[in-house]
């Protein structure tokens, strides 16, 4: 554990050296995560970075990214249900796609097309995990094909570790863990864990998807899982993102019909 300490300290310093976001509302945890994405782009041979928060039962949201194109590239994976971030989370290990044009990337046909259209040729995804528990994925994009050096992989993993620290520190501010409660947590029903407020805001657009899911469940008379599948199918068929479809549904501009295939 102490062996990784100098690397962690270096990455923390790189993150701290990035200017804070202009948007005052994005300070706090999400502001730090945005600084981290930009620091990762600068330190690694990379053109974009994004942080997605995920849970095992299908919650997915983009917490921060170095630029809007990277937000879109994470979101498109949620629409399609495929891509390096989706796999890195499911497999609990880094997914390295140094050449999205290569046959090895053909397991994500739709994602690959979307990424290439956005001008990216390589994608690398690193799971955010603590022991058996998972928080999401740090993804790195590049406009030129090529492998990451082993040194760059180690540094990316260190960025992932600092991402986990940042997310957990933010969470701790909403409900502190003390020395002895770390060993014997007593669930306190009066104090439900709440989400870090900056994270809550950053995931706001993602929450629209879940509102639309609840609406589709009622409109179609199907289960929640089926409702999400129908939203994804509709987005894919109409060549739009899940978020666009969700916004239309929540605004009342779109209603899925029970007999629509």
């Amino acid at each position, binding site marked *: 554990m102490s062996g990784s300490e100098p690397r962690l300290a270096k990455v923390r310093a790189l993150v701290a050296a990035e200017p804070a976001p202009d948007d005052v509302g994005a300070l706090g945890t999400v502001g730090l995560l945005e600084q981290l994405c930009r620091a990762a782009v600068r330190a690694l041979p990379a053109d974009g970075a994004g942080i997605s928060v995920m849970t095992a039962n299908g919650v997915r949201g983009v917490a921060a990214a170095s630029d809007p194109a990277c937000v879109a590239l994470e979101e498109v994976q949620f629409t399609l249900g495929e891509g390096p971030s989706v796999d890195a989370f499911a497999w609990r290990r880094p997914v390295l796609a140094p050449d999205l044009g290569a046959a090895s990337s053909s397991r994500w046909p739709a994602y690959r097309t979307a990424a290439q259209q956005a001008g990216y040729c390589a994608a690398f995804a690193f799971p955010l995990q603590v022991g058996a528990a998972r928080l999401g994925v740090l993804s790195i994009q590049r406009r030129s094909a090529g492998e990451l050096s082993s040194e760059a992989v180690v540094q990316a993993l260190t960025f992932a570790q600092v991402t986990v620290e940042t997310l957990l520190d933010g969470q701790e501010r909403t409900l502190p863990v003390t020395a002895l409660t770390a060993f014997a947590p007593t669930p306190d029903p009066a104090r439900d864990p709440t989400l870090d407020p900056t994270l809550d805001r950053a995931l706001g657009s993602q*929450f629209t998807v879940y509102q639309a899911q*609840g609406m589709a*469940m009622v409109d179609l008379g199907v289960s929640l899982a089926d409702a999400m599948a129908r939203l994804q199918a509709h987005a894919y068929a109409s060549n739009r993102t899940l978020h666009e479809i969700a916004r239309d549904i929540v605004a009342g501009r779109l209603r899925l019909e029970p007999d629509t295939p």
Partner: protein
Amino acid sequence: MPTVSRERLAEVFVEVADTLVADFDLIEFLGTVTARAAELVDVAAVGLLLADSNGQLQFMAASDERTRLLELFQLQHREGPCLDSFTSGIPVVNADLRRAAGRWPVFAPHATGLGFRSVHAIPLRLRDRVIGALNLFGTDTGNLGPDDVRVVQALADVATIGLLQEQTIHRAEILTEQLQGALNSRVVIEQAKGALARTHDVDVDQAFELLRRYARNHNRKLVDLAHTVLVDPTSVPDLTQRLGA
């Protein structure tokens, strides 16, 4: 000199360093540390105290479970060699209990009453962070030599590193669970807002108001109610059935 062989010494250190196991049990681990300390050096009893979240020392484990002895450990949250060592970060070694009544007016007579003549306290310390202390009692004075102190301090250091690592992992796991729980709760509430908005033909903000009012009036947790709306809507008909339907 430590009374055990080099091989045994190595075994003990490996055992005490091994906290990163799936079924780690704090009390069992601390019990092992006290038992091994008593084995490595010639003392009559060993106890271990850890600081709680308020910085108060709490008795955690002992090599010997006699009630009167346990009291001796417990009263050290107010005075005694453990408190001194915990506060200063420096070991207390070979303190003569018969001459310590001025320093520890409650602790020293209690300890001599149990037949102890000397006491030692070794801080559980990593760099500038002290998390507790190891407490050793002897039945004669001056029974710990410099080598003994080095061995016990090394044992305390290894145990401290193990404890801090274990605590770091536990903290991370607890916070990860909380973050995931908070995310899931948020999503369930959004889904229920969507479902209620369609059922009652209102917007999502009004749907949230319906959900919140029902939760408050029926003294239910918002997230539990949201979950019920989604998986068992007929059990809350006045919320999930359309008015006039």
